[in-house]
């Protein structure tokens, strides 16, 4: 297609090229000769990245679907079993629990950390002294590996010696076993997720706030609007695009939660904190059921797709 279009003009160019003095030549034939050169350069420049993603992402994505229809334990050849893996998942209470936990985790961590992030971002946007230090403090959990900080959280949640129960005792609330209690463990994981998730959302909000036209606030001040009123009538509506972006990446991130669960609870007690990604990991690398793990991956992907599209719909129509 492109060759056909380029060929005739290119041929005519080469014939009169010799006649044109060298100095004049460079500008005139840009459309064709160097146009083709440019196209080739463009393709060559993006080719390595495209090839990489083709090999390590596109092919594996397709292979996941195919593998999900097989029984494969790495040591012997895959055996075609149709939809059997999906049937098994359907009747598997653990994976159902994992799906539910993932939804609950996402449902709480995303809005809560977003709300905290927006409030902190607005507060930090007041050109405070030490602003950089505050910003660094709120962002630090984000750049800290979960493994390193997990021991601290295990201490905070420790029923006997932990900080949380000690703090609750001060106000007279009886302590809990937290991570050891199936009713509370997921909340413990959620709190760590919120703590770690504030930083990046805050940074995006701060950047977005700096783009809001100052005159809007000045006009509102003249009209006698209070700070709270300004927040709800100017700041939040103006942050809508940023909010939408943060919302989508947060959901995608929350669905992939793994580290917290792996290092804090190992999915327990009684599967109360297991997540979809954790089940995929368990099936593949502890039980060596690659086909089953692939089927679970497909479901994770499908679920995430649906949730993203639905929430996108919801926030989009909300904006209009």
């Amino acid at each position, binding site marked *: 297609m492109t060759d056909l279009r380029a060929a005739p003009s290119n041929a005519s160019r080469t014939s009169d090229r010799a006649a044109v003095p060298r100095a004049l030549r460079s500008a005139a034939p840009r459309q064709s000769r160097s146009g083709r050169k440019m196209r080739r350069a463009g393709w060559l420049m993006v080719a390595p990245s495209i090839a990489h993603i083709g090999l390590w992402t596109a092919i594996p994505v397709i292979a996941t679907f195919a*593998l999900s229809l097989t029984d494969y334990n790495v040591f012997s050849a895959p055996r075609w079993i149709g939809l059997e893996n999906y049937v098994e998942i359907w009747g598997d209470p653990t994976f159902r629990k994992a799906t539910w936990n993932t939804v609950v985790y996402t449902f709480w961590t995303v809005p809560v950390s977003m709300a905290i992030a927006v409030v902190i971002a607005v*507060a930090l946007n007041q050109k*405070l002294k030490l602003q950089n230090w505050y*910003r660094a403090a709120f*962002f*630090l959990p984000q750049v800290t*590996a979960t493994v*390193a900080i997990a*021991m*601290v959280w295990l201490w905070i949640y420790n029923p006997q010696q932990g900080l949380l129960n000690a703090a609750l005792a001060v106000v007279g609330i009886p302590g809990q076993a937290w991570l050891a209690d199936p009713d509370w463990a997921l909340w413990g994981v959620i709190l760590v997720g919120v703590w770690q998730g504030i930083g990046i959302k805050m940074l995006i909000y701060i950047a977005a706030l700096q783009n809001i036209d100052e005159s809007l606030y000045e006009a509102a001040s003249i009209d006698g609007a209070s700070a709270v009123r300004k927040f709800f009538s100017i700041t939040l509506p103006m942050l809508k695009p940023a909010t939408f972006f943060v919302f989508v990446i947060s959901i995608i991130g929350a669905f992939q939660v793994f580290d917290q669960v792996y290092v804090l609870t190992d999915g327990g007690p009684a599967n109360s904190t297991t997540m979809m990604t954790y089940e995929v990991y368990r099936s593949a690398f502890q039980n060596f059921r690659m086909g089953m793990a692939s089927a679970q991956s497909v479901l994770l992907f499908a679920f995430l797709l649906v949730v993203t599209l639905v929430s996108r719909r919801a926030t989009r129509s909300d904006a209009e």
Partner: protein
Amino acid sequence: MAITTAVRPIPEIGSPLPRRRPRSTKKTVGRVLGYVALGLAAAGVLLPFFWMVMSSLKTNNAVFSVPIQWIPETFVWSNYVDIWQKSDMSTWLKNTMVLSLAVTALQLLTGSFAAYGFSKVRFPGRDVLFLVYVGTIAVPWQAYMIPQFILMSKLHLSNTLWSIVALQAFGAFGVFLMKQFYETVPEELSEAARIDGLSEYGIYRRIILPLSVPALASLTLLTFVNTWNDYLGPLIYLRDPNLWTIQLGLKSFVSQYNAEYALIMTGSVLSVLPIAIIFMVGQRYFVEGIATSGLKG
């Protein structure tokens, strides 16, 4: 509302001063409250770090003492000597450093290069290709990590550091970040260079790249930190203890020496320290990187 706007202008013309004073006192009060609230919130967020550092300087018995001991009675600095003998900390740190540096260097190169193609060179299908390419960021890695692992094993690369390098050498996020930055570089610059007869590679290397230092700095920091902190990738690919990264090593140390609380904390501090320093020094670039990739996305 209509009344206020009609009435307001009248006092305003004559007396800007009296209106200013109550507002400024109210503002100061709000400001002080803001400082206090922010200070408390920041302290809360930082509390786990404070306890981690302090516990790394305690004796084992003092770590979980009741009532909580915030400052150690005696500072046990020897923890920071013992950890190197009791664990393979040096191997883990070396592996993590090698991986982080290699991955970061490669991503800078491949990301800035591909982004030039997507941003400054016009060729048919470019924009669709870019959308599809960047769209892969939204596909969770867990959705295709299993065939990827099988493929890597077939190539006999799993259980080597090469596996992580091969996977992370290219990154759609890096391309996206660099492209966002290139879009702010005026088109005339590359056009002029083209007229002067510079090849596309020449424009990339001699004009665009030197201008992109801030974006490259952002990408460096974000990639380095991500690679340093990565857990699931190394967990799957690096089975041999000699290949473990600091995260994997620390996790195994925790289960192996689960009573050595103080040493566990020492190890945790050592694993966080490089990242914390890098973050403090390069905070500006983190913020800019996240702002440019986040805002226009």
